[in-house]
């Protein structure tokens, strides 16, 4: 498990984001126990109140749940929930900044679509079949 911190956001937010990422990528599986506040705090040298604040965010979003006396566990359906949330913000977080950068570089709409198609033809990224 690897956590990295920078100055872009408060530490508790970064803890929440990175735990979310671990659930999203399947590093932490549903039903599995999440690292405890104590573990994270001692391992990362972060005040336990800060760690708790980060974890509480995930509890509030229904991604982690507290099993009394046992600790925090990844909630059933957590991964799907993250996927849904990220789909919702995909346009805002990725497409918009992509278009902004393209426009700064003078890349036209046709050229951009061309580039996206080329990305798929490269073969490294699989095109999802329509549902």
């Amino acid at each position, binding site marked *: 498990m690897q956590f990295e911190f920078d*100055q872009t*956001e*408060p530490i508790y937010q970064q803890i929440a984001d990175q735990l979310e990422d671990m659930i999203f990528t399947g590093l932490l599986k549903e039903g599995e126990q999440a690292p405890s506040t*104590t573990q994270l705090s*001692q391992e*990362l*040298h972060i005040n336990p*109140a800060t760690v708790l604040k980060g974890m509480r965010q995930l509890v509030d979003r229904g991604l982690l749940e507290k099993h009394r006396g046992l600790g925090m566990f990844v909630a059933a359906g957590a991964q799907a929930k993250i996927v849904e949330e990220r789909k919702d913000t995909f346009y805002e977080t990725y497409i918009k900044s992509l278009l902004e950068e393209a426009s700064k570089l003078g890349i036209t709409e046709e050229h951009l679509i061309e580039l996206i198609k080329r990305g798929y033809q490269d073969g490294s990224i699989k095109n999802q079949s329509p549902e």
Partner: protein
Amino acid sequence: MEALKISHLNKNYGRQTILNDINMTLEPGKIYGLLGRNGAGKSTLLNLIVNRILPNSGTIKLGNDDINDNDAALTQFYLMSEVSLYPKHVTLKQMWEMADLSYGSFNFNRARRLLKEFDIQDENVKLSNLSTGLQTAAKLIVALSVNANYVFLDEPILGLDANHRDVFYQELLKAYEENVKTYVLSTHLIEEIQQLVEHIFILDNEKITVDADVDDLLAEMFVISGPAMLVEEYVKDQNVLGTRSLAGIKTAFVRGALSEEKEIPDQIQIKHPDLQQAFIYLTKK
């Protein structure tokens, strides 16, 4: 456990004012940072709290009780001592026994374990025979094993190498987890303790100038950089603590919420500072 409340505390030596109208509250079970530049009066403040020296005016109370000459209160406070306050030939084991005598229930097991963690061979070694870094380690071992609800660590990482600093951070959090108490870390070495402390006090020019949760303080501070003209225009009405320039790029350090209406030009980058940067600009002469 009760809160420790300091009100209107003043201390001067002769005509020289050291502390001027200090007001602060320490809550039970939190880790605090007491930050200040060299000579800001951090050690004086800690010595006042543990009643080693007396204020010229003001009060220090634990709950409702004044701590002055109050043994019941004072045995809840432990201040990591300066080496010079120990008897000349004191051994580490004797330091533990002294702490056990004054505070009771000294955690000898933890002390022995920490001895190993800090790579000190023998509990019968003399404090004065250790290097500066290991003297700090020896004092930390006492501070982390003593039975007191308020533990004040004055320059806890003085001379410690990177491995031993690591041991200290981990062991502090471990001790805190096992037995929740209040720790106050007084230091001017801030970078590494930023994530350890929940709340900070900054002592500057005889006064407490910042009393805030670290998250809240950093959230309201900004580092704004970009082309000089754009930055100057953007920070015009803000509380600018300081600026730096490098080849036409200007960086401004700002405290206080940024205007919501003002549009941020594309070439301007806005970040939050880390605690060290924030400290530098908050305590600039």
